[in-house]
């Protein structure tokens, strides 16, 4: 019984396997999205001209030529893929800057927002789920279950607005938007220190829905695990119910939660579009919405590609965490 999964090659091999598996998906995503986006009426030249408020026909032609929009779709696609193969994501027509720069500038804020939201969702969700499972069927469980269902049913953007009304407009405790103080107060350590104030409302708005999912899942999973034979064994060993819960049940119960977390990374980026708009948060979600409106397809493609990779990376992470949580999972 060789314990190969503890071998040193596990992580690289897992990565390689997942990337291999992801390749057709990524290719599919690129092709699908690329041609799909071209169906959108209006192009970047229209957007730029509309932004400018004026144009001439010669100007429009020149603009399209400059943006390469005068070439055939296949040629454009070929050039795009060629660029991609050289890790060139192209230029943003809206910002007239390399797409990669824009992404890099927006990525940290989005990652910060998503990681915070996910951390809140996972941590509080698990605690809430454990509490519900602990009091299954009794009053605390019923109250928390209703609360979880409320979180599950409330639109994130609306709760965002209501939080603004309460905490910014009425109480004046927290800022109503932005990712930091306006101006240079947001620079350096001072900026880092006040960041949580800006982060709190958006990450709560974004995370609440997922929090409820993890709470419900943890509860169901804990209850299911609590009925398992090994729990009886652990109790028969004389362990306290606390130890049984934390040492035995929880780890098993977390397996489905980690799967879900992996699946939600992409969905959360979608949710970020709305929440970042509500809170004026300068992240990728907002950038992608702006990119759609301004037909800045290179930016949009890059974000979709990035999020696809993010989803795949999340899958790798989940597999690693699973491997750590559950020794039964082995490479095949």
């Amino acid at each position: 019984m060789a314990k190969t999964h503890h071998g040193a090659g596990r992580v690289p091999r897992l990565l390689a396997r997942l990337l291999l598996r992801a390749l057709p998906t990524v290719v599919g995503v690129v092709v699908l999205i690329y041609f799909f986006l071209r169906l959108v009426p209006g192009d970047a030249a229209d957007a730029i001209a509309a932004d400018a408020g004026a144009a001439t026909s010669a100007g429009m032609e020149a603009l399209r030529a400059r943006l390469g929009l005068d070439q055939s779709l296949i040629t454009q696609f070929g050039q795009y893929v060629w660029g991609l193969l050289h890790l060139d994501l192209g230029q943003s027509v809206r910002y007239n800057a390399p797409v990669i720069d824009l992404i890099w500038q927006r990525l940290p804020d989005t990652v910060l927002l998503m990681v915070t939201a996910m951390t809140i969702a996972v941590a509080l969700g698990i605690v809430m789920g454990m509490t519900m499972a602990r009091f299954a069927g009794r009053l605390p469980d019923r109250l928390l279950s209703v609360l979880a269902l409320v979180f599950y049913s409330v639109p994130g953007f609306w709760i965002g607005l209501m939080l603004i009304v309460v905490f910014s407009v009425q109480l004046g405790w927290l800022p109503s938007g932005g990712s930091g103080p306006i101006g240079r107060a947001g620079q350096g350590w001072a900026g880092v220190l006040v960041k949580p104030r800006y982060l709190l409302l958006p990450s709560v708005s974004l995370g609440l829905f997922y929090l409820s999912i993890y709470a419900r899942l943890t509860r169901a999973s804990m209850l299911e695990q609590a009925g398992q034979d090994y729990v009886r064994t652990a109790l028969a060993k004389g362990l306290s119910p606390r130890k049984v819960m934390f040492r035995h049940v929880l780890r098993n119960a977390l397996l489905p939660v980690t799967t879900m977390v992996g699946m939600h990374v992409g969905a959360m980026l979608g949710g970020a579009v709305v929440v970042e708009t509500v809170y004026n948060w300068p992240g990728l979600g907002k950038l992608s919405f702006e990119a759609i409106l301004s037909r800045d397809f290179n930016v949009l493609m890059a974000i979709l590609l990035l999020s696809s990779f993010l989803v795949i990376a999340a899958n790798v992470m989940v597999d690693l965490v699973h491997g750590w949580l559950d020794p039964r999972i082995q490479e095949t």
Partner: protein
Amino acid sequence: MNAPVLDIEGLDIAFPMARPVQNLSFQVGAGETLAVVGESGSGKSLTALAVMGLLPPRARIAAGSIRFGGRDLTGLKPREMQDIRGGEIGMIFQEPMTSLNPVMTIGRQITEVIRQHDGGTEEAARGRAAELLDLVRIPDPVAKLDAWPHELSGGMRQRVMIAMAVACRPSLLIADEPTTALDVTIQAQVLDLIDGLRRDLGIAVLLITHDLGLVAQWADRVVVMYAGRPMEIAGAEALFARPRHPYSQGLISASPRAQGDRGFRDGPLPEIPGNVGSAASLVGCSFAPRCPVALPDCATRRPALRQLGAAHAVACPVAK
């Protein structure tokens, strides 16, 4: 019989709507194997769980006492009961495949119980765990400490369960259907192991089973339960030689495999005509509806256990 290790007296286990164990009394002596035999639903597993203090949430002990080592377990605080579980009483379960935590190494699961009761370092506990694995005849015990449950066969896992159960030198080992899920050949090995530990360590064994073959082969004494009540309590030899209760007789004779006193092959209980009655619903003998020799009285008056000999009791007015 020596001074009993476990002394159950008039035990009633109640659910809100049912009373699946009623007026159960028996003793287990040191170094003795007592088998509790009965069909599923007869309350035998509940009895074992009651001893462990692990009854399901809605069940409770409504009457009676469970005396162990001079204390009544029914009156202990949860914290005190924890020290007894796994420390003074060990238990092994029916499903070795699922009774071990799949995400914890074998070693961790054994050291956990050692450190819970005996304290000490993880290092010391690991050494002890290896000894235990050796004791339950698992080859290459040190390496196996780092094995995961899914890497072991069912028989091996049951040995691990046994190692865990006896890790803190309990005076009582409860084995709830320990071999039901195992192959026939493995069954014998596992029971042989339990029996050896009983002999070597002087542990009393409470064997819960529905398998008459096992009872015949391994038990010193037997409690036959039906619908939550003891029907007959006797030495194994005496019971198989001459079952007194009509239910016991039915069990033993209805089995096509009943060949002489110890000639039972391993296997589940044979079918007896009729259904197992609900213990709560009857005022009389619970076996009466299925009893071939029932008297008119049996349906209305519950027969008490009566001594037929020094070590033989039966709850039947008809039995001789």
